[in-house]
């Protein structure tokens, strides 16, 4: 049964991905990307990774879609047809990379394999210690906030930095602009005084 769900979800993912590539209407493409994220979230849920699914659903299907739509409202919702000429070299590069990636998956352990290296590094320690040291039922929260607190601190800093970058780039009329106006005004005053 779970295999059927996997196959259906992956088929939908592939179909939507192809549709996004082929669409020239960017509005529809953004909507499809939201659906793509929602399907990914469903896949994560099927794989019992609820926290990841939660993040994917809220960020991928929610905020990203809104931000992309906001971008479209500033630009245009029609894709430029400047580069529509077939590019055999690009196709070859993409196919080769894809083949290499598929070849690499043969060496990967099967999904959920208990002997996989990932389950023998720090994971057993976390699982053993969460109950007594942290005392939080949700192990994901315990790892993210406590065991891996440095990582989450770094991630929060990344989000903060992204916001500062956007503020500097787009907040112009309210931050840089005002400073410039004030400076202009001051220099004018100085000019009048001298």
């Amino acid at each position, binding site marked *: 049964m779970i295999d059927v769900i996997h196959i259906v979800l992956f088929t939908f993912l592939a179909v939507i991905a192809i549709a996004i590539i082929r669409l020239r209407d960017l509005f529809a493409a953004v909507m499809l990307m939201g659906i793509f994220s929602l399907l990914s979230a469903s896949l994560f849920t099927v794989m019992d990774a609820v926290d990841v699914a939660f993040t994917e659903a809220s960020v991928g299907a*929610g905020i990203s879609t809104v*931000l992309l739509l906001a971008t479209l409202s500033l630009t245009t919702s029609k894709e430029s047809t400047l580069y529509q000429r077939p590019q055999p070299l690009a196709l070859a590069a993409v196919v080769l990379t894809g083949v290499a990636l598929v070849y690499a998956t043969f060496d990967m352990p099967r999904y959920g394999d208990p002997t996989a290296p990932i389950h023998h590094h720090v994971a057993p320690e976390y699982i053993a210690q969460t109950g007594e040291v942290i*005392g939080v039922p949700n192990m994901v929260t315990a790892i993210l*906030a406590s065991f891996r607190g440095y990582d989450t*601190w770094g991630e929060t800093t990344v989000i903060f930095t992204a916001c500062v970058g956007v503020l500097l780039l787009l907040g112009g009329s309210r931050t840089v602009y005002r400073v410039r106006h004030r400076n202009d005004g001051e220099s004018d005053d100085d000019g009048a005084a001298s």
Partner: protein
Amino acid sequence: MIRHVILRVLSKLLIPLIMLFALYVQFHGDYGPGGGFQAGVIFGAAIILYALMFGLEAAKRVFPPRVLEFLVAFGLLLYGSVGVTAILDGGNFLEYSVLSHKPVHGQHLGILLVELGVGITVAAVMATIFFLFAGRGRSDA
């Protein structure tokens, strides 16, 4: 300002529920799926929905950009100050066990504050970025 009656009524109904759900995700992250990041995104989505339905100016009156910019930094500093407090209490950076008399209580307190910091920063960042995108190209922005 959008005039569609159904959308307006529904979003009026939904926005408080979305915010409540964000708070639930925030403070229930220790027990169920979720945590600061998801809660922040959901809260930011509520602010964005408000801005979409009732206009950017109305949203900026409710959530002034200056306050949001303050919160962007405040959340991160809250996170960092928990780490520094742990150092002052004789532990390592972000070692929550020293924050309270019992190590497990310290861990609880640390995780709660740290997740709160993440949530505040993320919600404020999402709203700020949307306000900047939506306000671009307008004279009053």
